[in-house]
């Protein structure tokens, strides 16, 4: 029971992180009908910026995260304008490869600037070994609680921005029908840029939340992003709420299956680094049997 609870708590922690990145993916997918394969590296870059402000400039952690979010957000908006907008989103190959190229460039820049070695990341939450609440013998760490709260605040923030502000309304209009939005006078380009701004900033937050647990190196987010892809696919690539639920489902499946694989005959080779296989299977199964995901909009194709 204790072990089971512990695995649930681990799953909650991972789920919150996957959710943050999955929401960023969903925002970009809604805005530009594009799966942003550079999301991991944008988040990684933001985490590095945070780290730079916090350790090299000596700022407190949360202001560093905030400044890094703003900076990467602006970066995201610039990327949308310079690299994404000139291309036709319905021609997938060039645009997919451009996001890959962008990812490579970001990874190389951070490798040059900050080196390839692991860095210890300052924790945004109390993270001493004694900072936990014991529930049924399992440890619910303050970090987990903090990550969950940050995630909840972020979901609330995105919800409020999309539903209570004018630009949020414009964003929803554009993601629903681009042509009609243009006709009623919405500045489509700026709205899409706003989507990228939000996504990049959220990615940075996700990176900063997870960097303390994984340590910082240029590829640290790339290892996680497959799970966020799985989460976003499971929830439906255009549903923010779905992404959150998908993230927790994927994290729970991962945590429990990897945790108990030792006891399941025929699966005892499965160690934590094989969890990627789970993500792959989730993506494959969802796209095969329910391509719109749990909460996504069903797409109908016409000639």
């Amino acid at each position, binding site marked *: 029971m204790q072990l089971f609870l512990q695995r649930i708590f681990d799953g909650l922690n991972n789920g919150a992180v996957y959710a943050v990145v999955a929401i960023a993916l969903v925002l970009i997918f809604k805005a530009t*009908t*594009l*799966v942003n*394969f550079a999301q991991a590296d944008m988040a990684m870059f933001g985490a590095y910026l945070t780290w730079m402000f916090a350790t090299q400039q000596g700022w407190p952690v949360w202001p560093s995260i905030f400044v890094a979010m703003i900076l990467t957000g602006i970066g995201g908006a610039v990327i949308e304008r310079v*690299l994404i907008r*000139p*291309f036709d989103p319905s*021609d*997938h*190959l*060039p645009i*997919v*490869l*451009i996001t*890959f*190229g*962008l*990812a*490579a*460039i970001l*990874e*190389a*820049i951070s*490798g*040059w*600037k900050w*080196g*390839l070695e692991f860095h210890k990341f300052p924790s945004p939450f109390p993270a001493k070994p004694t900072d936990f609440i014991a529930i049924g013998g399992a440890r619910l760490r303050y970090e987990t609680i903090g990550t969950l709260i940050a995630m909840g605040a972020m979901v609330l923030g995105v919800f409020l921005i999309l539903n209570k502000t004018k630009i949020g309304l414009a964003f929803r209009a554009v993601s629903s029908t681009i042509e009609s939005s243009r006709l009623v006078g919405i500045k489509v380009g700026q709205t899409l840029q706003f989507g990228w701004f939000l996504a990049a900033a959220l990615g940075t937050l996700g990176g900063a939340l997870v960097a303390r647990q994984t340590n910082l190196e*240029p590829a640290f987010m790339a290892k996680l992003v*497959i799970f966020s*892809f*799985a989460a976003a*696919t499971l929830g439906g690539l255009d549903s923010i709420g779905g992404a959150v639920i998908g993230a927790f489902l994927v994290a729970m499946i991962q945590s429990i299956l990897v945790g108990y694989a030792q006891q399941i005959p025929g699966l*005892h*080779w499965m160690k934590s*680094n*094989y969890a*990627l*296989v789970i*993500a*792959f299977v989730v*993506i*494959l199964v969802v*796209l*095969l049997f329910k*391509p719109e995901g749990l909460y996504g909009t069903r797409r109908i194709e016409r*000639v």
Partner: protein
Amino acid sequence: MTGESSTPTSRRTSLLTVREGSSQHRVFQLVGWGIFVFFLILVPIALPNFRVSQFGQSIAFAVAILGINLAVGYGGLLSIGHIAFMGTGAYITMIFVNDYRWDYWMTFPLALVVCFLFGVLVGLPALKIRGLYLALVTFSLAYTFPILLKIDQWGISRRTGGDNGRTIKEVLRPPSWARSLPTLSGKNPQEQQATYQYWCFFIVAFICFLLVRNLIRSRPGRAIVATRDNQIGAAVSGVNLNLYKVMTFGISAAFAGIGGSLLAINLASVGPSSFDARYAILTLMGLVIGGVATLHGCWVGGVLLVFLQDIVTRIKFTAIPFFKIEKGSPLTQAVFGLILILVAFFAPGGIMSVAKKLKARFIRVVPNPPTAADRVAAAPVESPAAEVLSGAH
């Protein structure tokens, strides 16, 4: 995306206009082939053995890119996971040469068949999953493949060598007649070996390219392209979409597997790091930079892939202040990413489309005017269906 279509620039006055199929056109084609063969022979004669070996590697990548091209370029199935098929081919060659003492040549048919079946298996989801979603699935396949090789069960990691991979003990030894192939110094056994490998690779690649060229020009090839350009239109015209998609995936996987087998011979060791997501992206980039849905583009992509990596690892970046450069940094990818973005902006059809435009400045090939017999064949047939259609308007 095709790069094959005629461009407006070809309407500009060019120096020469030749008719397709005329003797002049034949001469130009022969000259083109002559230049190609000249450089092909020049490589082992003029370059030291490690360069020859790099060209061999380029050929291996060209075959793999050819396979990817068949699915991504001609079939419109956006797959990032072909690296898994390349890896399968490479591992089959390595395992059967090492553990079962097979000859290199015997592993090719096996790699072909296994990769074809693997491709069909992966292609089955492609029937339902399209576009970006397929990219997602295949991307996660590319991520998962190296991990699957390390599974510590059923003897998998013992055969594959796990994290470190395994070296191939057997070398592709040139037979005595092949030692007289022209090389730089003429005596060095390493040079002879590299040259022999180079020519063997070329023969395999030549057969592969010939097969794909004929496939693309044939009826099934046109059906594949039609599936890419207008799925519903193709289905209405009687193309069995499911069959063609799965077959495209299978055949392209088979060629990628052959490319992987060649690569295994060239590298002389096979490990998971040569077949990870990074290389999946690099090969795709090679394809796009060379030119999607062109055959020559595959060669260009293969050569670029190998030599850009070589150049990038040699550059001394200490000259650039502010950046400290370490070996093994992800620089290659960044250089490729940058080139790719530039190509996407300035030459959307890849290097081959630029070459085509340049050629059009000098020589313009115009198709033959239709003969009287063609006109009769192409004339609209008076049929009840045609009347119904015209009456509907």
